[in-house]
């Protein structure tokens, strides 16, 4: 009986090796991105609360800003200035002297 043993050529062996390496690499990448996505989603889901509180803070700051702006406008109104100046004893000039 003759036993014939066939041997893979060197190039064929290298090709299979490379293919399995690629397969492993791609699998690792897929697993990595899948884990990363889960991690990001998880983290973002937690940020919802933070986002909500930031939005509320923005709203309350805008509200406060509007109230302060209105307060300034009231304090700077001519009605207010006139009554304040009158209470402090200021009066309109009775006569204006022009120097030429």
């Amino acid at each position: 009986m003759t036993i014939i043993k066939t041997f893979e050529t060197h190039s064929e062996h290298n090709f299979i090796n490379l293919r399995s390496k690629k397969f492993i690499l791609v699998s690792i990448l897929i697993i990595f991105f899948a884990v990363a996505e889960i991690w990001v989603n998880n983290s973002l889901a937690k940020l919802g609360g933070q986002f909500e509180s930031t939005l509320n803070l923005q709203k309350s700051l805008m509200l406060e800003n509007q109230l302060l702006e209105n307060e300034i406008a009231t304090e700077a109104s001519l009605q207010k200035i006139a009554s304040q100046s009158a209470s402090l004893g200021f009066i309109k000039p009775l006569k204006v002297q022009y120097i030429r």
Partner: protein
Amino acid sequence: MRFKILRFFFLGFLATITLRLFYWQIIQSDKLQARAEVQHLKNESVLAQRGKILFSDGSILASNSPSFLLFGQPKILSAEEKESNSTKLARVLSKGVEEELEIKKKLINDFSQDLYWVPINKNIDINTKKNIEALSLKGIGFVVSSSRFYPESSSSAHLLGFLGSNNKGESTGYFGLEGYYDGELKGLAGSIRLEKDAQGLPILIGNFLTKEARNGKDLTLNIDRTIQFIIEQNLKKGIEKYGAKSAMAIVMEPKSGNILAMASFPSYDPADFTKYPKEYYKNPLVADQYEPGSTFKVLVMAAALNEDVVKPDTKCDICKGPINLGGFTIRTWNNQYEEDPTMTDVIVHSDNTGMVFSAKKIGLDKLYKYIEDYGFGSPTDIDLQDEFSPDLRPKNSWREIDLATAAFGQGVAVTPIQMVRAVSAIANGGKLMEPHVVAAISDISSTFEIKPKVVKEVIRPSSAKSITEMMVKAVEEGEAKWAKPKGYKIAGKTGTAQIPIAGHYDPNKTIASFVGFAPADDPKFVMIVRYDEPTSSIFGAETAAPTFFEIAKELFIYYKIAPNE
């Protein structure tokens, strides 16, 4: 056999599941989908801020203030809680004991309704909201809204108009600037749609749809707040001093047509307009017609000068006494007559017979055309919602007497804005301008400026100069000379018009006015002051003219104009 029974049982079970699934997935799908969306989607509308209205220096005339709608949820409250909420809320919302009882009654009524949600009170300010929140009441809440805020309180009410609600309950501007520019001011509401988790917090990786709210545009006015304040103070004083029914004034820049100030009394508070009679809402300066009386004489005389039918020194040869015309007798206001007065004398002494003389020289066709060219009989196109223009009677219905009376301002109806604009054409070398209250409309990215617009040249510059000199002399030597500020050249004319009632003129009720401009050589402002039915004196020279000069004195200081005489 057993196998068959088992198989039948399984098939029946499968059919039941299939039918149930069909029911949920097909028949009830829309309803369930909607319920799911409500549970995990949040829809929020974002209010657009109404645009601000600013004085020419950028200070605020009308802005917005956050306000809140207080609501109650009667279905989740017990009878005791309803009673307790009503008592506590009434204490916070009321200003006195009587009002407290009234409010409590209303609240008990609100809470007794068989509803999930009832509005309790609109326009609650931030401080009241804080006070209510401090009570930690069950079954009440707030919805954010916005109300108009006026730092100068009721100033410029007629100019502004007010913000009310239309028949759909939406905020809408009425009268004045709020009405005219409602489209620009109101903006466009936006919305947010996002997914939420079980705790109601947004899921950032979910669907997130936003439609940005577009805020309303801001209006920057030509109104100078100092001049506005000056005229308001003087009119308030004047209406009391002269016991008038109403008082009003407009200050206009003749070269541009810009309205620098506009005020009238009695007025109202735009923040609380419902507490005032509806008759107060209309701006009489643009909507109220009257017979201008002698102030109209300067316009007729300017037309006569422009037509070269008279000169300032032309003598009137029909002015020795009353003029009889078509069965009517035309007299001077004091029934005193001069021998051959010049046209300048006619204006200085406000001589009706001299005006008949000049009107006859012009003739009906030409005078009618001048009246139209000055802008009477058609709107001035001022940017205020309430403008109304009285019609001119058709030319073919005018008789000889109508031409004669029109020469001294009787039988012609005008509005104060038409009158001040026509006189401003004299101050502007004959050019009639379109009056503008708003200088610019701006949003976050752009600004649209409203440029001065010349409507037409009504008279030649030389005619404008001649009539100006006559008006200066009328101030220097006329009935109101005692009130004139010394050292300044002011051109003006008084007017005392009787009020037509049921086919005749009321002898005791007048409309007293003064229209003029200063400094006459290089006018910075044209102004009209009008009092309706003054009681201390019926004459314009003793009521409107002094107020005009008081305001002018303050304006000279404000504009830093030194006397030059």
